[in-house]
């Protein structure tokens, strides 16, 4: 029976759990916006982050705040390595955007298999016991996890927004996102800006994974499934719009949570793929990146210019 209490309850719990969805989506959207790269390897970073915290808490028995710091460090380090050793090399070669996509996907799969080998395939959480006391507000169950999670997420998003609007480095990111060639002409260091975007995304991912791992169970493949959500949210929210990705993530989270009323739980996972497909088919405007080579190297003999749009603007 659908009454106000149930609806509100679902809305509230959806809002709470969309926290990590939002962080993952914004991280993905940020990298896409600034570097024009579909960083599917974000799943690898998520996996690395989670298992770092897991090892710190459950194997080494260190306190939670240490685990958190370690997790953030691991996430940032992994992002650094990925950008400097991976993406930069690929950019230099001028490989196609699709090549990078497959590459990042394989990186995520590789990390997932390593995790499978080391940690096995049973679900894990960061803390061995997860008990979050619940208080009743009105008739709605509010978990002790909810408010801090929402608070932290909002704080992180606010910090990011302020960074991008008020700091020089942040504005460089926006400039590079808009027009990388022009930004370079103005003396902005594209390389550093890309790295910065990746590191910020890494930080968001670390935070998101900490939230996720303290509430839900994680398998080695979880990173990849969560990524599909982030991709769908980014596309639906509009490429280039971080706010859009965040809002879309919340909405998708609510829909997925609310769908439990209508669909049996075994099909919940499938819903994710439906989202993704719908995103692609219904929101083609999302993907309007010029079909360009990744980077500037051109190993083709007769050079073909980027796109019809570029051609028409020429003469």
């Amino acid at each position, binding site marked *: 029976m659908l009454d106000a209490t149930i609806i509100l309850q679902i809305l509230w719990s959806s809002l709470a759990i969309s926290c990590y969805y939002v962080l993952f989506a914004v991280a993905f959207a940020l990298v896409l916006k600034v570097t024009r790269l579909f960083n599917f390897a974000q799943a690898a970073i998520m996996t690395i982050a989670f298992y770092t915290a897991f090892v710190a808490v459950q194997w080494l028995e260190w306190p939670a705040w240490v685990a958190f710091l370690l997790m953030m460090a691991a996430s940032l380090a992994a992002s650094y390595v990925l950008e400097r050793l991976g993406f930069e090399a690929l950019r230099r070669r001028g490989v196609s955007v699709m090549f990078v996509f497959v590459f990042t996907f394989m990186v995520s799969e590789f990390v997932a298999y390593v995790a499978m080998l080391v940690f096995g395939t049973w679900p894990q959480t960061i803390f061995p016991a997860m008990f979050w006391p619940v208080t009743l507000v009105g008739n709605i169950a509010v978990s002790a996890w909810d408010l801090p999670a929402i608070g932290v997420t909002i704080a992180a998003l606010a910090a990011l927004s302020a960074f991008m609007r008020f700091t020089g480095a942040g504005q460089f990111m926006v400039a590079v996102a808009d027009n990388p060639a022009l930004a370079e002409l103005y003396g902005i260091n594209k390389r550093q800006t890309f790295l910065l975007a990746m590191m910020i995304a890494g930080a968001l991912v670390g935070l998101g994974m900490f939230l996720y791992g303290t509430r839900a169970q994680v398998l080695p493949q979880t990173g990849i499934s969560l990524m599909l959500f982030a991709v769908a949210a980014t596309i639906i929210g509009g490429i280039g719009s971080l706010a859009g990705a965040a809002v879309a993530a919340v909405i998708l989270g609510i829909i997925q949570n609310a769908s439990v009323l209508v669909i049996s739980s075994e099909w919940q996972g499938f819903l994710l793929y439906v989202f993704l497909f719908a995103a692609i088919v219904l929101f083609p405007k999302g993907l309007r990146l010029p079909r360009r080579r990744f980077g500037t190297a051109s190993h083709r*003999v*007769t050079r073909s*210019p980027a796109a019809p749009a570029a051609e028409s603007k*020429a*003469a």
Partner: protein
Amino acid sequence: MTANVLEVRELNKSFDGIVVAREINLTLQSGRVVGLIGPNGAGKTSLFNLITGVVKPDSGTVLLEGAPLDRLAFPQRVRRGLSRTWQHIRLFPSLSVLDNLLIGTHDYPGERLLNVLFRHAHLAEHDKAARERASDLLARMGLGHVAGALVADLPYGQQKLVGVARALMGKAKCLLLDEPMAGVEGQSYAAMQRIVREVADRGVAVCVVEHNVAFIRDLCDEGVFMFAGAIMARGTVADLTRDPQLTELYFGH
């Protein structure tokens, strides 16, 4: 033989606030070569993109032999008889010169998979005819000796000629040439002039975008001056080049 092959009526287009086409009206007649001139950014290549359907106009229509092309995509317009070359050549680097031409014909039965598998004799016949046409075209351009070479190995001027040749393989009714002379000199220059004139004499309607004034003057029956997306003047090329106002627009930036 002066039928209206291509008609452009009231074409308008802006990108992000920049007007690239403003109320363009243009008619291309069979057997005549029209020269489209103007400074960079005037909208000449954009006009070609609009006519061929690479870009959709905001308003206006394009007619080929009286039939509107507006609903057709670029490849479909090409099949109807519209052909174009590109400012940056766009040859296929993985194919030889001859193969680049062979793929220029529009109906290649070898490209239907079922034909490849089952109708071999038919393919061979069509292939032979196409090869003859291609070789003949190359010979007329003085390129017969490089038929088997890779396009990457050719000097720039010859590459441009191959580009034009490829556009001609499709038996077009209307040919749009985008800066065919840029970077071309010597023998290739003379060959290009000769080829374009021959094509026009066979009844094709030709429009050439060019900066090379000598080429335009020698070749074109009519000139059209574009600036900031609009057509400023029409007339013989001689008249246009003598007009001081237009000269200032062209060089004044």
